[in-house]
């Protein structure tokens, strides 16, 4: 087991280096000159001399690989440079916005898990019943509805029409409810479907036949099937944690939620490259780390995986 974890850890090192290089490369091949952008956002006239000074200040006059090296070393120490707009260190800006996104994403994750496990198992047990058909209809519509439309409809119904929740901003617990519901709805349909289908498939396996032959109770059999179906769902869940955090971009923008998704979109409009860069790297690292954790959890749960490696 230790060997497996170590192997997995070593495997992500080249991927992380690749990611950091890619993020840095992206910003540097962009059509706009960062020095010019940095000048323009401060409403300085971009004369050739001013650009030259700014290039030196930002270290843009050095060769590409030296710049990449410096940037990598600095970011490893948590220094992503300063925002062009606010002049604050990017790390400060990010850490100010991160708790809001984390609250939104984790609450949504809890709700998504709870609801989809409940309905997924229920539908698998009652496959073909009226309730199952209703839930499947809901899933079908749910995957086709754009999340920003769902958000707008919810906002209109509960914030404008009934005035139950605020339309936007972050003050107090009741302002998080609409964003969380919007975000969860997008994922719930995917997961109900996943859990339902995995369980139905698992029911054909031999171990289920064996439990039936042993004369176990229906409930116990369902528990067996559920445990075995959990693995596919766990892998998908591992993938969806960073997706959820990335998915907050739209929801945060609809409900003016001050998280990192909104920070990133604002940065895109302002061409604030250091923030975009940091956002990309952070998301990618999160994605890789979540995958790693989920792989390890799966290996802990299922000895077949760790022996396969």
């Amino acid at each position, binding site marked *: 087991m230790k060997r497996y974890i170590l192997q997995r850890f070593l495997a992500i090192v080249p*991927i992380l280096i*690749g*990611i950091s290089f*890619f*993020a840095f490369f*992206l*910003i540097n*091949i*962009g*059509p*706009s000159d960062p020095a010019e952008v940095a000048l323009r956002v401060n409403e300085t006239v971009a004369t050739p001399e001013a650009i030259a000074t700014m290039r030196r200040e930002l270290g843009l006059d050095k060769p590409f690989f030296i710049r990449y090296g410096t940037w990598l070393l600095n970011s490893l120490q948590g220094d992503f440079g300063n925002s062009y707009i606010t002049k604050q260190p990017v790390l400060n800006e990010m850490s100010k916005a991160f708790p809001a996104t984390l609250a939104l994403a984790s609450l949504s994750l809890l709700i998504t898990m709870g609801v989809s496990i409940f309905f997924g198992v229920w539908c698998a047990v009652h496959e073909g019943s009226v309730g199952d058909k209703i839930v499947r209809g809901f899933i*079908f*519509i749910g*995957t*086709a*509805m*754009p*999340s*920003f*439309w769902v958000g*707008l*409809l919810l*906002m*209109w119904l509960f914030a*404008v*029409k009934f005035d139950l929740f605020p339309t936007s901003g972050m003050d107090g617990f009741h302002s998080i409810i609409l964003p969380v519901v919007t975000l969860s709805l997008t994922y719930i349909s*995917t997961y109900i*479907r*996943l859990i339902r*289908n*995995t369980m139905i*498939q698992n029911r054909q396996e031999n171990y289920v036949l064996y439990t039936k032959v042993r004369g176990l109770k229906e409930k116990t059999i369902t528990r067996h099937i559920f445990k075995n179906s959990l693995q*596919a769902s766990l*892998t*998908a869940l591992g*993938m969806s944690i*960073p*997706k959820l955090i*990335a*998915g907050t*971009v*739209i929801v945060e*923008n*609809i409900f003016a939620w001050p998280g990192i998704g909104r920070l*990133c*979109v604002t*940065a*895109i*409009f302002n*061409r604030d490259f250091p923030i*975009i860069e940091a*956002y*990309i790297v952070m*998301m*990618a690292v999160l*994605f*890789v780390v979540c995958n790693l954790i989920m792989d390890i959890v799966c290996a802990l749960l299922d000895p077949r995986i760790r022996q396969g490696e």
Partner: protein
Amino acid sequence: MNFWKRLKSDRLAVLCMILLLGVVLLGIFAPLIAPHDPLEPNIKFKFADNSLEYPLGTDQLGRCVLSRLLYGIKTTVVLSLLTMGATLFIGTFLGIIAGFSRGKVDEAIMRLCDVLLSFPSEVMILAIVGMLGPGLTNVVIANIAAKWAWYTRMIRSLVMEYRDKNYIRFAKVAGCSSSHIMRKHLLPGVLGDVIVLATLDTGWVILTISSLSFLGLGVQAPTPEWGMMLSEAKNIMTTHPAQMLPPGIAIMVVVAAFNFLGDSIRDALDPKGDQTKAVVK
């Protein structure tokens, strides 16, 4: 062919196909069908009710909503199809090369894919739009860039299945050139599966393009686009909530039709198929 028979017997799939074909045709012939110019404001008639003249009413600038929806098809649906086409082309090309050639070329392409796939595609798209700046062309480029790696990997694994089949071996022994084998023997084999993947994904691409336009990162005003129309509807939500319905319903119906068609095609190709695989993706 067995596949077509199965697909044809699925009434809903046929219905989806007819619907989508109809939508695309409506989009192509929008200039002929649309009752008004989608860009022409007419402040006198703003927020007009449904009438014969304006079947779906008008928006905050007095522009005909139906005309904007019809023209929006061209932007949203046609661009998504274009995006899918380009992604498939790159993915198939590199996937077949990687799968067929093995060795260093394969290794290089696959490692590149590994790095690209370690980003969630949403982040990848934001990254590229962030770098190139907002705009429709950039959104299309971003979508292609975010997706091709996944297709390359899928197609490579499909090619691996065919690579050692006897008819390919025979072609090699018979002295066919590599490019001939790739074009004439490998491509037809993988094409069917590739089309299923593409149909399943088109709905996703439509959602992405309209989401980005909704955020203001894609299509710029006044071009009619469904996500953009919803973003305009957001600002007047308190006074005219009904403006949110036409574009939202349009997106939902088209995406649902693509999703359903994708599912049906998959079932028709592989009746006992592994349903979870597509969901996990």
